[in-house]
């Protein structure tokens, strides 16, 4: 898909929320230039020390999976010369994505007003924990912090238990925000094409997390934690089969006759007992024949085994064969783009500065001397 082929993105995004937003824009055809510096690299490069044998220590899997399809340029935004280089590139770009802690861009002298002066049509997506203003403006968070603060955790949990969070391995708010922000950026891109100019998008992850549980705020009565149940289901839960598989079942009120036919019971205790005395495959085939939604609760390996049968595009391969994040949707008339592999630190500094910034080799050498930019190790004399 090359829909955003004429769109250039300066990616200051880090870890998941910001970096994954830009990765989605790359999927849509945008030219994405990730900007880091020697003094501040994306913390995902050092995440939990997940380095596997034979892999570059600066390129762990989580970082590679989220930064494929991008170019990499090293500019020290703390240096005045580096800041000027950034603004020179910005004048020839369309979108900036950032998710620094609030106050960082101000300290760097890179506010929206400064950016707009360099490029009146620029679209700046500011992704933050709490938004650009308000008493909690400076609150820092990971995704699960926001589940707690946004009202989602209070509703998540077993009937008799404490609130729950999705945790470090899922971290739901950090994933979904990338989808939402990419959506708002493309909306701003569309509006700009309609003559509405650039935009500053103030995107609060906490607000998004609350918004995506929006109906909970409309309830007149206090809500309780109800485990896996949902209003529209007669029963919905995971039940353990005889061969120790968790079976996820959604039994609608209209499924009651079918439930009775399959299990000989209509109450939940009877259902639980029936499942406990049968094997998972037998259970699934009978429920599916009866039109009742049923699945095994799968772990990671089992999910992978279903690729190309049940799902296809969520994970992909970069051109070098590396397993990376895939795409959110496909155009049924076009093939999915194969993405360039994740670039090493500073790989494209020289090329981008020359081609987009208009810098000469001598100017680039001088900027390296000043510490304003960096080249990859193999480019240094």
């Amino acid at each position, binding site marked *: *898909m090359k829909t955003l082929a004429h769109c250039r993105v300066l990616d200051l995004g880090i870890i998941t929320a910001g970096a994954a937003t830009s990765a989605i824009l790359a999927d849509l055809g945008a030219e994405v230039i990730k900007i880091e510096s020697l003094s501040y690299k994306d913390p995902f490069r050092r995440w939990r020390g*997940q380095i596997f044998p034979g892999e570059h220590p600066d390129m762990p*899997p*989580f970082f590679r999976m989220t930064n494929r399809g991008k170019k990499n340029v090293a500019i020290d935004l703390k240096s005045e010369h580096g800041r000027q280089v950034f603004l020179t590139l910005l004048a020839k770009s369309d979108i900036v994505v950032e998710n620094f802690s609030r106050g960082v861009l101000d300290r760097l002298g890179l506010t929206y007003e400064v950016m707009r002066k360099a490029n009146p049509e620029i679209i700046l997506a500011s992704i933050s924990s*709490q*938004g650009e203003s308000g*008493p*909690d403006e*400076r*609150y*820092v*968070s990971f995704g*699960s912090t926001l*589940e707690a*603060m946004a*009202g989602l*955790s209070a*509703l*998540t949990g*077993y009937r008799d238990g*404490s*609130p*729950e*969070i*999705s*945790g*470090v*391995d*899922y971290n*739901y708010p950090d*994933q979904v925000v990338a989808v939402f922000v990419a*959506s708002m950026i493309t*909306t701003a891109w*569309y509006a700009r094409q309609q003559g509405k100019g650039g*935009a*500053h*998008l*103030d995107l609060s992850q906490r*607000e998004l997390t*609350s*918004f*995506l549980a929006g*109906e*909970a705020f409309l309830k007149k009565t206090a809500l309780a934690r109800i485990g896996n149940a949902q209003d529209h289901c007669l029963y919905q839960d995971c039940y353990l089969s005889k061969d120790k598989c968790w079976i996820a079942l959604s039994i609608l009120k209209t499924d009651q006759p079918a439930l009775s036919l399959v299990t000989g019971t209509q109450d939940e205790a009877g259902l639980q007992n029936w499942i406990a005395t049968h094997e998972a495959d037998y259970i699934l085939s009978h429920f599916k024949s009866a039109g009742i*939604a049923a*699945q095994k609760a*799968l*772990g*990671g*390996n089992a*999910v992978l085994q279903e690729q190309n*049968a049940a*799902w296809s595009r*969520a*994970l992909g391969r970069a051109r070098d064969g590396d397993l990376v994040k895939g795409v*959110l*949707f496909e155009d*049924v*008339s*076009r093939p999915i783009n194969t993405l360039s592999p994740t670039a090493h630190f500073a790989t494209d500094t020289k090329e981008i500065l020359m081609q987009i910034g208009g810098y000469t080799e001598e100017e680039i050498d001088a900027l390296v001397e000043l510490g304003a930019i960096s080249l990859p190790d193999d480019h240094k004399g």
Partner: protein
Amino acid sequence: MPIAGPQAWNEDVSTVSRPLAGLTIIEAASKGPLALDLALGLCGRIAADLGANVIRLSERADTASDLTKEEIAFLHAGKKRLTASSSQFDHLLQDVCTHANALLCDVGLLDHIPLELKLPIASIGMSLEAPMSGSEFTIEARSGLLDLVGDPNRQPLRLAGHPLAYTAGTALYLAMMMGVIEHKAGEKSGPKRVDLLDIGVWLNWKTLGLAKRGARIPSREGSASEWFIVPCADGFVALVYRIQEWEALKQATGDQRLQDERFATIHQRREHSKELNAILSDIFSRKTRAQIRALSLQYKLPLGPVWTPAELLTDEHFKHRAFFHPTFFEGQTFPMPRLPVIWNGTAFPPAEQEQPA
């Protein structure tokens, strides 16, 4: 541009200047799984809040569906709602699409769309294998997401609400916008397709990325998780922090027990996580959520006081950002969350409910 306070908000109540003003979008739902209706509904809600004229065409009246009245109010703010019987549906769909700029639908309706309609289409299904069957919950099970939440000795647990269906609805919105942009540019493109299962797997990328590389596969760990929730003096708090926050956490709590050499390094803290978590639980059991919030702000800690939706309605931060808007629906006024974006300093309050035609 810093906003001084709620009174300084520029709330764009009219839809004329919103980004999607002038677009008409059809949201068509058949009698498929509820998850698809939820995803379509959220996608249409986003478009409506951004200024599009959204017409929802459904094979069953919303009141006859499995949606709760709160879900109906939340999803269908500002839309025109039409219901048609199966025999009238195709004709009406074709009719409303004639002057529309985009169509949102479930994949079950794709065969009902005449080829001569050249408008951008964004469609949604459950999975490649079974596009129109299953539930949000069973798709969460199949994507591995259920396996990540809850206690290892109890059943896997879903997150509350509709996180998967609504993420899919957001992806559907992105797909629709791509179609609209391509169409405006005169590019030839086909229908876009989102599947709930692919979205679930996409959300679960960390687990699968590790599994593919033969690493330890994450699964739910309950109270042994790196991040977990503990009771505090007036509720609960999510103890969320990473290695870089350890020193700040020690400083913020001022508790000597955390100085113990058993906790000096990340490896030692992992080795003694049970003892460490017991100490942290004890420390926070005596603090209120307001105190924890203040400490988090002061020491830049990502701790999460657990607020309930009812409490958030009067939360000072949300009040400052005018996050809730009184919205009239079926004789009642609801506190409706607005779209979570401030656009050049402008918030877009949700439109009042349209009554079914």
